[in-house]
């Protein structure tokens, strides 16, 4: 028997600290090489592999539930995070680094992942490639079900698995020696518009193409382009597929310390005293920080433009805690184990206060006050827990009531929606250190590096110039990383210890202590006439912001703005109270308030249709906004009560709108008419099953006008390639690629001629960051302008070199500058000339761009469901999203965004919910009980990109990332209504909730 020890540990087995840990030796074959390693006995295989520099194996949860840490163990897929390293001794371990053998060469599986766009953030790329490899080796011709089963233990929050499954199918086919078709958009005929009144069906070819290929409805007014609009592989796809060390945690720093945050066990308490002496006395502890030794500087954590919206209701460490998991103290120590032990040794005396969790209870008289401190300014009504109040209306109260009085039918319902967590596979992580000039460097998984730099500065007492924030690749954000959430802690600890500091949230902390979507109670009253035209809409929202008000005003303003803008209606009013409770903190989340509002608006539309005996699609068509319609409530929302008088001509207007085409494509794709067939709805051979189809539609924005700004800088190199520097933050969605495509198009070169550097506050120009669906539209505008500036320098020189009088006559394409007479010069030669030969000049272009409009993208989304009436189980068979995102700059990344959003919003509809116990503690802080969809239970997801030409966007583009988040939940709810006749007005549609609704069983207790 082998016994893996060198040294005897603490005999009682209690905390071995502070003694030197006992090391054990193990023999492993890793990627074909023999290793003899020492590690701590409790180390997992994950820890040991990462320590060896095999960074493709990543932390996702520490519970085997996320799959980011999957490796091949004697050829079989296992989770390295739940395998004891010692147990692996003598075995063979394979990671994706084993495939990275020759420069530039890709394994066929990796190639397929790159080609079809299967990787967004790529955080779990290594695990997925290995799963595919194990599968294909055992089963050269796997079925879709087998592929999905093989992927079922690797969670992906980004792709909806559609392109991942297709990548594996392509790889298997390639390996069998079959020819795989090129990745090309499938072009669908338009169904509406001039000359197409009759129903047309797509060609047989189009219907056969895999859904993972982007399906596009072209618009005739879109110019032909060379790079824009093409399904280019992402510029970072290769390094992601290879599992290269590109994420925050994928670096080795000498003398790095580990940070750990002590978190509140109470939902609401005052901290009377903290005794950190025992923690400090623990060998290996270098710093302990808490309210007693850090400055009290008020701030708001939301990563937003200066000045951050009020109230600034947080300090880094407060003497009061407001939710279970709130910060109490933080420790820096030699190892994570020591830091954890030190946290346990901090003695905190709490005065426990009663908590309040429900938003409606929180505004009732006598509710516990979450923010009773005196130094927070700008709370709307602290005595009633109201952080903000938002109002907006297009007519006076009297006119609104008159409109309701004149309406033939008035509908009113109350809807409840829950807190949903972003659950990015990579948790929040920041590593900080002092550089050679003692400047603070923060390498952070953030969507807003520039906001972080500005916001962290006053907390640490450093000028902005002493701070550099670097955003490497990040493993998913979805709004959760539009926050300055942990960087301040890392900053304090770096300054206190002068050593590098690493702080990564555990999965449990990510669920409980990061951010989530606002829970809301929404009451919607709508008046309609007999034809189904809306005559009055009145929404009242009570929105739960949790313990802090970050994003409270903006999320709720934007949510109401979009929810109330999809339909034409002569009288609209929106009111919202944003309410503090002792729940986890709500913040920015993809959709930014719109999914909640659309759940109410779009659910009620179906109820109206039902009551009027109309088809819900027809009802929507009648009321949908069109090109030229004003966005009348948009400029009127704010913290004021009165109607803002705005001349009609000053209202923002819709300049492109594909809603009607989206409706036609979406209903075709889902087979809408089946919903009217009773024999389909109630299949004879399955007595407990009811089927149904439902719809939801949505509008969103493209950035925030006059606020969001991006900048870009471009320079030419000796060989005619270009460096592009952008502040824009690629969170996996592909903005680096899309911006480079825009630049390549303007400069007449190929995508591979553009070398992208993004999101480093020392190097790249400013950008507000990745949020509000702004990157393509706003930063894309900057990229286009910067490229045009460089182009102007290029054509000037080209005209001189080609002896032309008019630089305006020079065209750039095929990497050359062309005169009207057909003579040309390569950009490489032109670059050499400009850099070395005559009248030397670094050809550059730099530009900024901010939106003066926020062109709305639209989506029509549909769901086909089966409801088991005995168990209440809702199984979604198919989801369709037809989206108008203007001209998709890259149909692969655009359709990938849509597919991912569909599945993320399906979780919102069916399973995801932050559940607290009576004391306010989160009970489902793990991926098992907090259920996000897996490859094997995801429905068929079909994305259709309906092109429109948006005059205000770069090359006609609008935003794509958020709008497909909005309509799925109501579509599912409406499909359940179609199937069963039962209205479930609370999310998520858990089996028990649906069962109770079907059987009229009230909840006991």
């Amino acid at each position, binding site marked *: *028997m*082998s*016994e*893996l*020890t060198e040294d005897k*540990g*603490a*005999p*009682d*087995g209690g*905390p*071995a600290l502070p003694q030197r840990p*006992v090391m*054990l030796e193990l023999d492993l074959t890793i990627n074909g090489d023999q290793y003899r390693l020492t590690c701590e*006995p*409790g180390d*997992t295989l994950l820890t040991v592999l990462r320590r060896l520099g095999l960074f493709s194996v990543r932390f996702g949860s*520490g*519970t*085997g*539930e996320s799959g980011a840490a*999957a490796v091949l163990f004697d050829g*079989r*897929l*296992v*989770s390295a*995070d*739940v*395998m*004891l390293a*010692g*147990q692996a001794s003598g075995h063979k371990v394979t990671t994706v680094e084993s495939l990275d053998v020759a420069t530039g060469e890709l394994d066929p599986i990796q190639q397929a992942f790159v080609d079809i766009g299967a990787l967004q953030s790529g955080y779990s790329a290594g695990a997925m490639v290995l*799963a595919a490899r194990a599968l294909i080796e055992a089963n050269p011709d796997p079925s*879709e*079900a087998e592929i*999905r*089963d*093989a992927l*079922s*233990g690797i969670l992906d929050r980004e792709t909806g698995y559609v392109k991942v499954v297709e990548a594996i199918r392509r790889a298997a086919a390639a390996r069998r020696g079959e020819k795989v078709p090129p990745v090309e958009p499938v072009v669908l005929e338009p169904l509406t518009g001039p000359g197409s009144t009759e129903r047309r069906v797509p060609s047989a070819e189009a219907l056969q193409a895999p859904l993972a290929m982007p399906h596009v409805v072209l618009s005739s007014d879109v110019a032909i382009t060379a790079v824009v609009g093409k399904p280019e592989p992402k510029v970072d796809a290769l390094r992601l597929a290879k599992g290269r060390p590109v994420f925050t945690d994928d670096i080795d720093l000498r003398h790095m310390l580990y940070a750990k945050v002590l978190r509140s066990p109470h939902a609401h308490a005052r901290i009377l005293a903290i005794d950190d002496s025992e923690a400090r006395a623990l060998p290996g502890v270098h710093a302990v920080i808490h309210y007693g030794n850090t400055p009290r500087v008020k701030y708001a954590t939301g990563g937003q433009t200066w000045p951050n919206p009020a109230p600034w209701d947080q300090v880094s460490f407060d003497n009061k805690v407001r939710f279970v998991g709130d910060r109490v103290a933080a420790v820096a120590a030699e190892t994570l184990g020591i830091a954890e032990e030190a946290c346990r040794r901090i003695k905190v005396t709490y005065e426990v206060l009663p908590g309040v969790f429900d938003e409606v209870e929180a505004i009732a008289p006598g509710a516990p006050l979450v923010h009773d401190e005196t130094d927070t300014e700008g709370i709307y009504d602290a005595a009633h827990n109201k952080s903000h109040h938002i109002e907006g209306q297009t007519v006076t109260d009297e006119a609104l009531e008159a409109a309701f009085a004149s309406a033939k039918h008035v509908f009113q319902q109350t809807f409840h929606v829950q807190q949903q967590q972003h659950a990015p596979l990579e948790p929040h992580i920041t590593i900080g250190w002092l550089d050679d000039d003692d400047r603070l460097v923060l390498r952070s998984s953030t969507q807003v590096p520039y906001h972080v730099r500005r916001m962290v500065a006053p907390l640490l007492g450093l000028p902005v110039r002493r701070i550099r924030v670097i955003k490497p690749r990040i493993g998913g954000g979805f709004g959760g990383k539009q926050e300055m959430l942990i960087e301040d802690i890392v900053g304090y600890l770096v300054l206190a210890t002068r050593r590098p500091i690493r702080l990564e949230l555990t999965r449990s902390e990510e669920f409980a202590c990061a951010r989530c979507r606002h829970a809301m109670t929404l009451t919607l009253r709508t008046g309609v006439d007999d034809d189904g035209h809306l005559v009055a809409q009145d929404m009242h929202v009570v929105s739960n912001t949790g313990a802090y008000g970050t994003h409270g005003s903006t999320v709720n303003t934007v949510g109401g703005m979009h929810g109330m803008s999809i339909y034409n209606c002569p009288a609209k009013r929106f009111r919202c109270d944003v309410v503090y409770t002792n729940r986890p903190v709500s913040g920015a989340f993809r959709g930014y308030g719109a999914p909640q509002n659309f759940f109410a608006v779009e659910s009620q539309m179906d109820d109206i249709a039902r009551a009027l005996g109309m088809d819900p699609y027809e009802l929507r068509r009648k009321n949908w906004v069109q090109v030229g319609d004003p966005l009348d409530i948009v400029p009127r929302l704010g913290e004021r009560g009165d109607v803002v008088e705005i001349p009609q001509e000053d209202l923002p207007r819709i300049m492109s709108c594909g809603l009607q085409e989206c409706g036609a494509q979406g209903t075709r794709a889902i087979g809408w008419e089946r919903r009217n067939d009773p024999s389909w709805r109630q299949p004879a051979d399955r007595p407990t099953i009811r089927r149904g189809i439902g719809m939801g539609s949505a509008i969103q924005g493209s950035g925030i006008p006059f606020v969001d700004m991006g900048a870009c800088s471009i320079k030419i190199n000796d060989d005619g390639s270009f460096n592009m520097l952008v502040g824009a933050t690629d969170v996996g969605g592909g903005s680096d690629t899309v911006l480079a495509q825009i630049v390549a198009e303007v400069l007449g070169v190929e995508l591979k001629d553009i070398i992208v550097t993004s999101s480093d506050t020392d190097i790249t120009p400013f950008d507000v960051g990745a949020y509000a669906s702004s990157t393509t539209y706003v930063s894309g505008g900057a990229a286009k302008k910067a490229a045009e500036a460089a182009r102007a320098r290029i054509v000037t020189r080209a005209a001189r070199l080609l002896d032309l009088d008019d630089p305006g006559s020079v065209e750039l394409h095929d990497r050359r500058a062309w005169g009207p007479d057909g003579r040309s010069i390569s950009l490489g030669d032109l670059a050499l000339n400009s850099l070395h030969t005559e009248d030397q000049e670094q050809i550059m272009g730099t530009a900024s761009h901010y939106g003066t409009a926020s062109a709305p993208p639209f989506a029509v989304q549909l769901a086909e469901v089966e409801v*088991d009436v*005995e*168990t209440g*189980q809702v*199984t979604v*068979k198919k989801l369709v999203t037809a989206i108008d995102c203007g001209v998709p700059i890259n149909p692969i990344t655009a359709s990938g965004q849509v597919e991912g959003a569909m599945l993320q919003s399906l979780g919102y509809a069916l*399973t995801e919910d932050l*559940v607290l*116990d009576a004391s306010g503690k989160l*009970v489902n802080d793990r991926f098992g*009980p907090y259920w996000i969809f*897996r490859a*094997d*239970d*995801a*429905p068929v997801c079909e994305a259709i990109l309906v092109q429109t030409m948006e005059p205000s966007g770069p090359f006609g583009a609008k935003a794509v990332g958020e709008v497909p988040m909005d309509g799925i939940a109501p579509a599912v709810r409406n499909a359940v209504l179609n199937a069963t006749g039962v209205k479930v007005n609370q999310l998520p549609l858990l*089996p*028990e909730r649906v069962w109770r609704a079907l059987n009229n069983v009230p909840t*006991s*207790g």
Partner: protein
Amino acid sequence: MLVFLPVSLEEAFDAFEQCPDAHFLAGGTDFMVEVNFALRRPPAVVCLRRVEELQGWRVEGSEVVLGAGITYTELLAPRLGELLPGLAQASRTVGSPQIRNAGTVGGNLGTASPAGDSLPVLAALDAKIVVASKHGRRSLELADLIVGPKRTTLAPGEVIVEVRVPAALGSQQFLKVGTRNAMVIAVANVALVADWAGRSVRCALGSVGPVVIRAREAEEFISARIDWEGRTPPSDGDLAEFTALVRSAARPIDDHRSTADYRRHSVGVCAERALGRVFSGDNREASERTSWAS
């Protein structure tokens, strides 16, 4: 902490003797989660993965003898799957490929979670569990091994060695209700065996009590009503009575996943469907799945 890598039971016992506070570790899929959450800091672990006697399976007479170290993936392999269809169905719903490749039946027993997916099947098959230590071997029923949530009667140093179950016994069904089917802890799971030769129905319920529950009254009732010769499906009235008896056998609690009411209701639905499928010869997937699997 010490890590022992014995290759035989004798060595495992020796390791335990050397270090009486040691914990046994099989696939680690339960144990390591606790270690990672710092809920457990064992002074020593004895890894069972390489212990010869715990590996593989064999047929002895009318019994299948499973080594405690058998993984779910192995249970899904064609030959064993035919001999033990109920266990195969249950295995298919466990976790993910990674978990099925590492997790073992011995570990499912050792963890003794009320939601453990192999447990109702073992209970319905009247499995015998053989445990051994330095001081000898004993064989016990599931109910005598698992006596409470996460509580077993294993003496210190006792290793689960093998599980003995009848081969290819009658018709077997396993059904599970969760928020979704796999990787979630079951809201309710049911294993049902119709032993045509022995003329009895056995029905075990998981996740609706502190331990797996055999619905004895329901079993006796329906076994007496079934037309064993003709194999005709039970009448609606008998099915309803059976379901009601199953529900009254359940002892569920409220938790965040579901209320006791719903658990009691669902366990009845599962049992009713399992019985129905036994007669209709419907061997569909153990739990309702999406179109990919059908």
